[in-house]
């Protein structure tokens, strides 16, 4: 500290205000986007979360593909029939959604827990441009990294499977949809985190809410399968609907059709953002 204080104390401060500038710089959505991009890229947690998420996708994809290839020759027919060359290398998305979801939450709650939000909102007092910009920057970063990773996982898997002639390629029905879908699904999971983070404002609370929605609800839904309500409720739960995009034959699993299911999942995220925007505008920061 002592090293710092010398700079201005004795000099009477030529505050640099001597060079007054005309007041021109208006707040625009584009500028807020730039600001949020600077914020996103200047935090280590952004890199770590994405690295962990994508790393887990690749690691699990490798593991599944490798084990199946090694055991293929001795595998019973029943198991062979269950095998799906498109989805097996992408299994890691289930783990990646944890990292992406947590990052989505922290993009917002990190500002509330540190007090940064007051600086952000006094710079952009209309507030909502901050929420839109955060969501856009986050979504772009997650979508690009997870989509690239999904393609990588797919091709790594097919390389292994090729040795047993059980591989798929991008022209296999459903393949392109599922590989792209993995990035899309993960992006929307993250955006749900951004929305819940804005609503709940506490990191722990928002993470709990997110994973209760994505992971716990479907398990609870299984109880309904013992009643006549199962078919009426379960396919429409957020994660079940969203994951319909990542299944080759949805008819077999009793899920919604892929794109309608994903559209519903997006709908949940949009609804979350409507509430988030309302609260962000209305509440004291």
């Amino acid at each position, binding site marked *: 500290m002592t090293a710092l*204080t010398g700079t*201005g*104390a004795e000099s009477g401060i030529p*505050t*640099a*205000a001597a060079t007054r500038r005309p007041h021109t710089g208006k707040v625009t959505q584009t*500028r807020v986007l730039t600001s949020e991009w600077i914020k996103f890229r200047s935090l280590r947690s952004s890199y770590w979360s994405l690295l962990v998420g994508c790393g887990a996708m690749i690691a699990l994809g490798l593991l599944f593909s490798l084990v199946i290839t090694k055991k293929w020759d001795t595998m019973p027919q029943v198991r062979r029939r269950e095998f799906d060359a498109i989805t097996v290398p992408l299994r890691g998305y289930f783990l990646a959604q944890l990292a992406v979801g947590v990052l989505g939450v922290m993009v917002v709650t990190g500002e509330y827990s540190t007090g940064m939000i007051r600086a952000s909102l006094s*710079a952009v007092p209309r507030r909502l441009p901050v929420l839109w910009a955060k969501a856009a920057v986050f979504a772009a970063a997650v979508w690009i990294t997870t989509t690239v990773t999904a393609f990588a996982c797919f091709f790594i898997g097919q390389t292994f499977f090729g040795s047993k002639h059980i591989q798929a390629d991008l022209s296999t029905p459903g393949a392109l949809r599922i590989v792209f879908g993995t990035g899309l699904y993960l992006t929307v999971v993250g955006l749900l985190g951004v929305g819940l983070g804005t609503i709940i404002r506490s990191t722990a609370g928002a993470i709990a809410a997110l994973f209760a929605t994505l992971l716990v609800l479907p398990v609870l839904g299984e109880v309904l399968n013992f009643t006549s309500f199962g078919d009426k409720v379960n396919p429409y739960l957020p994660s079940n609907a969203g994951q319909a995009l990542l299944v080759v034959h949805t008819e077999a699993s009793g899920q919604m059709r892929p794109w309608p299911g994903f559209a519903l999942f997006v709908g949940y995220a949009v609804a979350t953002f409507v509430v988030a925007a309302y609260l962000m505008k209305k509440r004291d920061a």
Partner: protein
Amino acid sequence: MIEARSLTKRYGAKTAVADLSFTVRPGIVTGFLGPNGAGKSTTMRMILGLDRPSSGSVTVNGKAYAEHTAPLHEVGALLEAKAIHTGRTAYNHLLALAATTGIPRSRVDEVIDVVGLREVARKRAGGFSLGMGQRLGIASALLGDPDTLILDEPVNGLDPEGILWIRNLLKDLASEGRTVFVSSHLMSEMALTAEHLIVIGQGRLIADTSVAEFISRASSGSVKVRSPHAARLRELLAGPDVTVSSAEEGTLTVAGLTSDRIGTIAAENQITLFELAPKEASLEEAFMELTNDAVEYRAPASGTGTAKPVAAPATGSNTGSETDSNPDVEVTA
């Protein structure tokens, strides 16, 4: 120019700010004084549109803060030290804020130098001391070269050199014609920095006056006289509106006469004076007197003495940044 009109903020049944009206004029440093918990921070947050008033309004340069298209150029604010993401470097923090209104990188470098954070600008703010956090906050307030500055307890956590620095900085900014509004619970600091005072207690306006007036209003106007001929002088001073008391041998306390008059009377009668001192209340005393009833958190043990604006530890509502609420803390030039 900041204008508050009947500004009121209620949190449930608790009223933090009650019917507060005041005007902060450009060109001078205006102190915003009050004990901890008086509503200073809440008022400042309402000025910046962060908290919504329950009723009333406040404008900056004629408009509600949120209606300014370029808020950072209108108002620079330091609301609390370390309103900074702990994982981000000081430089990136400022860069992100600057980007919202297209302030160039060169200006970011400029303010970093102004506040003296060059050496740590590339370090993460989580490791900053309170004083460094304050400097970073001040840097962000200066970013847009604003006409109005709002600083909440800026000297908190600064070392003596830093306090002197900020005192000069505030005076310089005001002398350039800017509106400078600074809150503090340190009366001594305000006496040295501010020209005008807005004093609140329990969310209500107690005084809106110049520092000089504030002190003189609370002064008793009595004069202390020490003389080897005290008894004789006492007789000479006697008059219809004059009261003279003597606490100890050779010392008089005279009310109703100016020190000039007393000195003249003594000289005319060839009485030796050892001491002739008008008693002026310090800003602290003036403040104590005015806020006596307005102190929310009273130290439990202070029942017999004068009430001090010290947050009782048990209340738990003391914020970390205001822990050194001793009003006697003073660092002079």
